[in-house]
């Protein structure tokens, strides 16, 4: 039998945006990294991303999540520059500030109240946001339709070209010596003699440390290393149009023009289990809302619509944790893989490389917060 075994300092399970950002960060720390990716049948959350680097509405219920998000957004320029400098690939990061448009007074008030509640939380690292009336929105985005009554605006929001982000991370990590292994679905993990032995469909992989960045599949993998990762799939559907001349220079949560001219329209939140299909009823609602925001979109052809599964916890916040029973095993589960890519690469990866997550950064994101009985005891 041929010896197909491979040895790494750190095995990252999952080659999506989360795994790739961590792997690139680890490779920059000088670690020998192997990225174990599933095949094309994988339920990849990364396929559903909206390419936003989004801050304004994050963190109601967990102020440290808002701070973590802001920290990532603030590091994004450095992150994008480092990727471009190394790989020559521009990820088209821009931070002009983001809008969330309201189509009724009620929506506008609900938006204002939501953003204010986030800022008013104890322990919140506050940041300013603005509520614009229709006229102020129109000055920035003249193409809005007659139903738009106003918007929230935050100068901290941005966006990028996520396809090139993914490409840059993949090229970048391999330039730094990381090994990308496709068709390496992990079947079993054994922690023995201070190392991890991973049984995969394409042979055994051994590593001193292991990072779960496997999205929904981390539910299955976590117990193998003494972790608990209670996440569920949540479907989001997306539409993308043909390219059109640039008109929308600000990122928004449901309509966004990419740097190459296509219009992305999103996004739904559906509890349908592990079904990533696209459905006409939902895409019709998304398209209708987009046309109410920008009536001229009605003339554009839709190139593609698709569904995808987010990685969602009960409270919507990420899980970052090191196993206590299998030290050296880490988990990273989240839904905002683009926004948090900078933090994963620049802040999380170095701590994994050192072997310790600082409680100050990561204690709020332990999955122990879901264990109600333990908290009550």
């Amino acid at each position: 039998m041929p010896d197909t075994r491979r040895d790494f300092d750190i095995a990252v399970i999952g080659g999506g945006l989360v795994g790739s950002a961590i792997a690139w960060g680890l490779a920059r720390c000088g670690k020998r990294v192997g990225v174990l990716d599933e095949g094309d049948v994988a339920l990849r959350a990364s396929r559903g991303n909206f390419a936003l680097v989004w801050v304004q509405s994050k963190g109601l219920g967990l102020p440290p999540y808002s701070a973590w998000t802001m920290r990532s957004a603030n590091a994004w320029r450095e992150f994008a520059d480092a990727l471009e400098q190394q790989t020559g690939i521009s990820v088209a990061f821009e931070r002009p500030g983001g809008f969330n448009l309201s189509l009724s007074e009620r929506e506008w008030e609900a938006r204002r109240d939501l953003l204010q509640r986030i800022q008013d939380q104890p322990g919140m690292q506050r940041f300013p946001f603005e509520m614009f009336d229709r006229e102020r929105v129109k000055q920035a985005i003249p193409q809005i339709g007659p139903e738009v009554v106003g918007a929230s605006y935050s100068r901290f929001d941005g966006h990028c070209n996520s396809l090139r982000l993914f490409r840059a991370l993949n090229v970048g990590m391999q330039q730094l010596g990381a090994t990308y292994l496709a068709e390496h679905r992990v079947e079993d993990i054994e922690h023995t003699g201070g190392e991890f032995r991973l049984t995969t469909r394409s042979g055994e992989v051994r590593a001193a440390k292991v990072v779960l960045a496997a999205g929904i599949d981390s539910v299955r993998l976590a117990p193998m290393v003494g972790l608990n990762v209670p996440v569920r799939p949540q479907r989001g559907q997306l539409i993308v149009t043909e390219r059109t001349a640039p008109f929308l220079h600000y990122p928004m949560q449901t309509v966004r023009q990419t740097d190459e001219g296509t219009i992305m329209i999103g996004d739904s939140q559906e509890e349908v289990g592990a079904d990533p299909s696209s459905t006409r009823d939902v895409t019709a609602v998304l398209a209708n809302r987009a046309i109410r925001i920008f009536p001229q979109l009605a003339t554009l052809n839709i190139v593609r619509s698709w569904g995808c599964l987010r990685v969602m916890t009960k409270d919507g916040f990420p899980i970052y944790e090191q196993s206590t029973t299998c030290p050296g095993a880490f988990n990273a589960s989240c839904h905002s893989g683009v926004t948090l890519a900078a933090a994963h690469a620049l802040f999380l990866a170095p701590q994994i490389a050192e072997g310790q997550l600082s409680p100050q950064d990561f204690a709020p994101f332990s999955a122990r917060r879901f264990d109600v009985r333990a908290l009550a005891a």
Partner: protein
Amino acid sequence: MFARLPPEAGDAVTLSIDGKACTARTNDTVAAALLASGLDHCRTTGVSGAPRAPYCMMGVCFDCLVTIDGIGNRQACLVPVREGMRVEVQRGKRELGR
């Protein structure tokens, strides 16, 4: 570059290509009329601006996108010519509302 093979079927149809009058035949597609007119490209791409001409002639490759009667990104190979039709070379991305 392209020449019609005899016998020429159908009647003459007059359309304009970038404002210049051009004669085609009924049953021509706009793409066929563009090629017969001697044009070497019918659009420039939206990202790099490279010139493109009709290629697959069967609705698959999307390289024959033109502006027809004021509407951008139309597949010239799927649209039959009509008397008085205004065809324009599409330069770069389609504009919103056009």
